């Protein structure tokens, strides 16, 4: 289900780093030896075995991150991102695996289109990539894709992200049929009859600025609908990029009732509110929109207590000229792969709002579990999917530094703490600062 280019496994000893893997119950200063891309030993004063030695003093070694929500814009908009550039950006952000959304041009709704992506990933991907396929043909919402064939061709899950399935009847059929594939539906919850021309969260800021409101209820009525259908059909679902307090409440109720639901939240919804829209900077325009402080607080609580177990960047690259327009004319979406860890570390972990171990868990084991992927881990015998982090170093986010082909980041000009020193993905070094 995951694809990347073939590289020889690395032989490395990371000496004296703080090794942190919450899912394995490890948090200690220790050496880690990697033989031919496999974690071979964890212990004190390990032999070098003529491996490359990386000094881990004052660094933290954790499982590398998994991003369940990325737009690679391929096929169709290779000017904005490619599998090569997107996976380089991901490696620079500390990720060892990402899942790409199918809302490309053409939409990934046939085994032929998916096959071409799988083949390209096998040649170009610096880290592992999984591809979601569409739920409906062309994401038009009226005909199911050939899900069984798509699953055989490598689809990791199904999603109409960006263009939600409007009809409840169609959603029910999708839940029923996808069950034979063993792959989940990942749902973008938005009732477009409520959000239609909305650009900004419906609230005080939209009212002041004159924007058509995109109310939180546009998301939560769809969350409630999809949870009800998932419960009725007994099928698991994954809720993409939740943004509102009402959605979190619905998620909690469904969890308590035993519905098999996982959910994700983006870094920007954890850190920003619609207050920043006053700047009219098109780089704070995304779907779902930034909401109120009440919503942000509810999302952070849910992330902390595990109700939401995944962080997904919703990395959405856009060409410079498409964002260099009035806010209202700008497309939705911001990049995030290269800043996700650092911004969450700086804005949530450093001020004491989220333990580091929880952040690491929600960026590694959480999303892997949600999509049935092997969990990146620091354990003997596991493939080396590791990230070495310098939590003391600061850096300035600058457009020139991005590996992504796009630079529509809401963090341009910000100073962040936390640098990815090295990413080992699929046993090989994929990035080194």
């Amino acid at each position, binding site marked *: 289900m995951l694809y990347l280019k073939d590289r020889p496994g690395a032989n490395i000893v990371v000496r004296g780093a703080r090794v942190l893997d919450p899912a394995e119950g490890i948090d200690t200063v220790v050496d880690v030896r990697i033989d031919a891309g496999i974690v071979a030993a964890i212990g004190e004063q390990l032999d070098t075995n003529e491996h490359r030695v990386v000094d881990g003093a004052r660094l933290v070694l954790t499982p590398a991150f998994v991003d369940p929500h990325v737009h690679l814009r391929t096929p169709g908009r290779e000017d904005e991102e490619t599998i090569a550039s997107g996976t380089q950006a991901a490696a620079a952000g500390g990720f060892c695996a990402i899942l790409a959304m199918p809302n490309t041009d053409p939409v990934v709704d046939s085994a032929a289109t998916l096959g071409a992506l799988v083949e390209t990933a096998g040649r170009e991907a610096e880290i592992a990539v999984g591809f979601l396929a569409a739920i409906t043909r062309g994401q038009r919402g009226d005909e199911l894709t050939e899900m069984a064939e798509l699953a055989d061709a490598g689809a990791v899950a199904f999603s109409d992200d960006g263009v939600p399935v409007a009809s409840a009847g169609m959603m029910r059929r999708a839940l029923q049929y996808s069950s034979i594939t063993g792959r989940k539906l990942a749902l973008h919850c938005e009732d477009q009859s409520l959000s239609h021309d909305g*650009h900004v969260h*419906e*609230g*005080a*800021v*939209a*009212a*002041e*600025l*004159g*924007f*058509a*409101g995109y*109310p939180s209820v546009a998301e939560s009525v769809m969350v409630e609908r999809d949870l009800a259908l998932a419960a009725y059909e007994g099928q698991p679902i994954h809720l993409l990029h939740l943004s509102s307090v009402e959605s979190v409440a619905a998620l909690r109720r469904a969890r308590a009732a035993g519905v098999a639901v996982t959910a994700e939240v983006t870094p920007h919804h954890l850190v920003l509110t619609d207050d920043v829209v006053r700047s*009219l900077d*098109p780089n704070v325009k995304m779907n779902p929109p930034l909401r109120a402080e009440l919503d942000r607080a509810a999302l952070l609580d849910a992330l902390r207590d595990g109700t939401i177990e995944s962080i997904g960047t919703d990395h959405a690259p856009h060409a410079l*000229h498409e964002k*260099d*327009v*009035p*806010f*209202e*004319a700008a497309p939705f979406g911001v990049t995030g792969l290269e800043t996700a860890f650092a911004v969450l570390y700086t804005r949530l972990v450093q001020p004491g709002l989220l333990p580091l171990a929880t952040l690491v868990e929600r960026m590694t084991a959480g999303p892997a579990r949600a999509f049935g992927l092997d969990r990146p881990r620091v354990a003997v015998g596991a493939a080396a999917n590791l990230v070495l982090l310098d939590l003391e170093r600061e850096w300035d986010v600058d457009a020139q530094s991005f590996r992504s082909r796009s630079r529509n980041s809401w963090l341009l000009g910000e100073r962040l703490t936390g640098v990815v020193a090295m990413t080992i993905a699929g046993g090989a070094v994929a990035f080194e600062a």
Partner: protein
Amino acid sequence: MTSIRLVRDDLRPPGPPPRRHLLSIADLDRDDVQRLLGTARTFESALDREVKKLPTLKGRLVVNLFYESSTRTSSSFELAAKRLSADTLTIKSAGSSVDKGESLKDTAQTLGAYDPDVIVIRHPQIGAPQLVARVTDAHVVNAGDGKHQHPTQALLDLYTMQQEFDRLEGLHVAVVGDVLHSRVARSLLQAFALVGIRCTLVGPPALLPRGLDAEMTTDIGVIRDADVVYVLRMQQERMEAGSNYVPSLREYAARWGVTPDRLRPGQKVMHPGPMNRGVEIDPRVADSVDALVETQVRSGLVIRMAVLYDVLTGGPVGVRALAAAEVA
């Protein structure tokens, strides 16, 4: 290598003053508003003369960039610039390279290459003036951006009220109609807060923005208590079949139309224009002596003169401007 110093540093002329824009009423404080109203009053007295042109902005270039149809705002800005002796260049989107798909950024930079002192922009999208301010070196004046702001309208309305009542603080204004889609209402609300005017917003439920920090009601009866009834234009395009903000224009007119029997005798009525007679405003109200609509248009000219003057000079019009006027 030595460089030849032509001027001693202390003889160098001072650099250009920082750019000043008028993008939103939110950028102003109370003193700014008072200064602009005062400047407008000074210009108004100058306009009573036989020769109405002042040399104040001679040699300056004011570009009017209009992406929406407009009669009063564009003519008013153009005349304001001309009355102050500035050169003007008016670009309307129809018939320009905008028709050929040129982006706002490119159009703004093209015009920016002429080094205009001021770019006045009207655009259907929120944030357009901010973009122009970002990509050019001109002072930018917002002449209306989408549903966001129309700051000179709010200023001219304050000016009109001050002329009429001789004060602003303590007045009560009822703003009636489609508040949701109105940039005028948004600018007015902020302007009213700056000068101490109480404001009540009145309209159908779906046209009162949720979350707005303001006094709001659906009851048209309350307008009788206000000093001024400010009628917003009911935008036809909002009333297309299927949008369902209100069931019909007919029902809107019956429920929220400003008619003589909903007003006190002598109660003042304002409207930013253009009016839909028989919809939001009864023709008898529109034509009554208590309607200040034409005063608003005249105020628009002097307020826009004041705004152009203010962004370019950064100070109150005073003795020197008047002296210049005398020379003319």
